């Protein structure tokens, strides 16, 4: 088999050197590059792609299989609405509602801080900062992402906690609010770097068009650049949410882990209580997962809470995907 056809001086009779001499044989012959290698690589890519799907399936399978005993015995309604969690007592309670609410609260609180902070930082880096400031600020923000979560958790425990306790006059500084603050710091780099990429990718011609119409810099950012980058900015926010809701070690150290419902009554209305010790879904699994008897109902009910956590992130991801594609369709990118 002729594997590769290298044009040589003798062959290219009459043709200037380097000019391709096309023949019918060459056009129809199979080559290693186009036939074997391409096909082989296609299979490799397919294999890795499918492997990821299989892995997801396997994880889901185990989550569901291990949680079935608890779901049978207790029922999903008790998990979602029950307010008392104590699976190992003689009068067991399987209410995961305090954890669910705590997870949502801590995450929402973190986003309320991190989204404006992150988006403004991204706008500053992408649109406003002079080159030298930008080159300093960008790596600084990205460095925040490399701190191990246990380090940030420790900082929350020994520095932020006492400050929160002092400022708000609490007996203990490990609260939902403390966890939100430190989580916002963790979500910040994700939001900033993805939002900044999205802002940067808005074509220069949009900016020029806006300036030429007499728009000020802020009007250009607000009315042209941000809307055009919205889906990307939103994607950054959602990734930040994912980071925050799944984070375990930091909240474990910062939030205090009390089992109470994280709500309080205020003139007859139930409101989330941020200045109270709370325990999130992740923290509870981490605390109880290591010493729960294998195969017990308690063990199985931890899996149920894991599924709840998975469903929350799944719904948020799905919703954000839908929002982003709707946004894209609206402005006609596809």
């Amino acid at each position, binding site marked *: 088999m002729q594997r590769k056809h290298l044009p040589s001086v003798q062959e290219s009779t009459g043709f200037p050197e380097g000019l391709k001499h096309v023949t019918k044989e060459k056009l129809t012959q199979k080559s290693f590059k186009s036939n074997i290698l391409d096909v082989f690589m296609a299979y490799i890519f397919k294999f890795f792609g499918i492997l990821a799907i299989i892995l997801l399936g396997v994880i889901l399978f185990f989550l569901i299989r291990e949680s079935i005993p608890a779901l049978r015995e207790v029922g999903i309604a008790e998990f979602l609405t029950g307010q008392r969690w104590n699976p190992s007592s003689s009068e067991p309670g399987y209410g995961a509602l305090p954890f669910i609410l705590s997870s949502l609260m801590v995450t929402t609180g973190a986003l309320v801080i991190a989204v404006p902070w992150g988006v403004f930082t991204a706008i500053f880096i992408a649109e406003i900062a002079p*080159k030298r400031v930008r080159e300093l600020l960008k790596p600084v923000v990205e460095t925040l992402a490399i701190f191990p979560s246990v380090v940030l958790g420790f900082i929350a425990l020994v520095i932020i906690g006492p400050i929160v306790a002092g400022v708000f006059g609490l007996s203990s500084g490990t609260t939902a609010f403390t966890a939100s603050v430190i989580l916002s710091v963790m979500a910040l780099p994700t939001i900033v770097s993805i939002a900044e990429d999205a802002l940067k990718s808005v*074509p220069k*011609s*949009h*900016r*020029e*068009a*806006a*300036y*030429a*119409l*007499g*728009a*000020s810099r802020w*009007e250009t950012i607000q*009315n*042209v650049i941000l*809307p*055009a980058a919205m889906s990307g900015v939103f994607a950054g926010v959602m990734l930040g949410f994912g980071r925050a809701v799944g984070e375990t070690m930091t909240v474990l150290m910062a939030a205090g882990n009390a089992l109470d419902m994280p709500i309080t009554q205020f003139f007859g209305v139930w409101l989330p209580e941020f200045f109270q010790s709370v325990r999130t879904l992740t923290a509870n699994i981490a605390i109880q997962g290591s010493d729960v008897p294998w195969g017990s109902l308690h063990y199985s009910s931890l899996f149920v809470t894991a599924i709840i956590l998975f469903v929350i992130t799944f719904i948020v991801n799905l919703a954000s995907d839908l929002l982003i594609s709707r946004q894209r369709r*609206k*402005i*006609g*990118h596809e």
Partner: protein
Amino acid sequence: MNLTKHDHDIAKTQKLHTTSTQSSIFQINDLNLWYGSDQALKRVSMNIPENGVTAIIGPSGCGKSTFLKTLNRMVELVPTVKTSGTITYHDVDIFSSKTNLVELRSAIGMVFQKPNPFPKSIFDNVAFGPRTHGIKNKKKLRPIVEESLKQAALWEEVKDRLHTSALSLSGGQQQRLCIARCLAVSPEVILMDEPTSALDPASTAKVEELINNLKKKYSIIIVTHNMQQAHRISDKTAFFLNGEVVEFEDSVQMFSRPSDQRTDDYINGRFG
């Protein structure tokens, strides 16, 4: 100084009374411009007449776009830009630190080489300028949008789909939309940088016809690589070479009997 519409009118009438010959909208005096250490415009001095079409021609890289963008100070979006000399517009040196850039740029509209509509609806594209300048009421915006689209000869094609994305229009339609968007802020001058270079002959003809209609009301300055186009649509033509103005003449004169040999060579395709 605030260049408001009212001031324009006063300035216009004053000019009409003081000068009997054609008055100029821009008086450019010894303009130099550098990108970092590269000089892109050299000792440019010319008076650009009010109303009518002024064409800018010259080989690639000679500074045509740079010159155009200097007139509304868009060129300063490039941070390394430095200028010297003066450009007088309504008795104001536009480089003076007192110049209100927002007013300047809404009086001097610009149409770019590549159509650059915003990824918004057709209506919102045209309404962008008026909205920016404080007209938020839909009832007031509607007639402005309609009138601008009519002036840009696009109304008939889009009147039934004002709220679809501007990106769904063809290239030629997008360019006319950009012209409509620029007209909606009721500018006095329109700068056009090769507005037809990305368009097919039919769309080009439409845009040229449009320019012909607009020149009664607006001062139009257009960069073009197309000699026939410059000849067809312009009243005066400036020939740029390496950042300098070689010749600035009535177009009829320039395209029949250019006074400089280099102009002659260029318009007859002997270089560039």
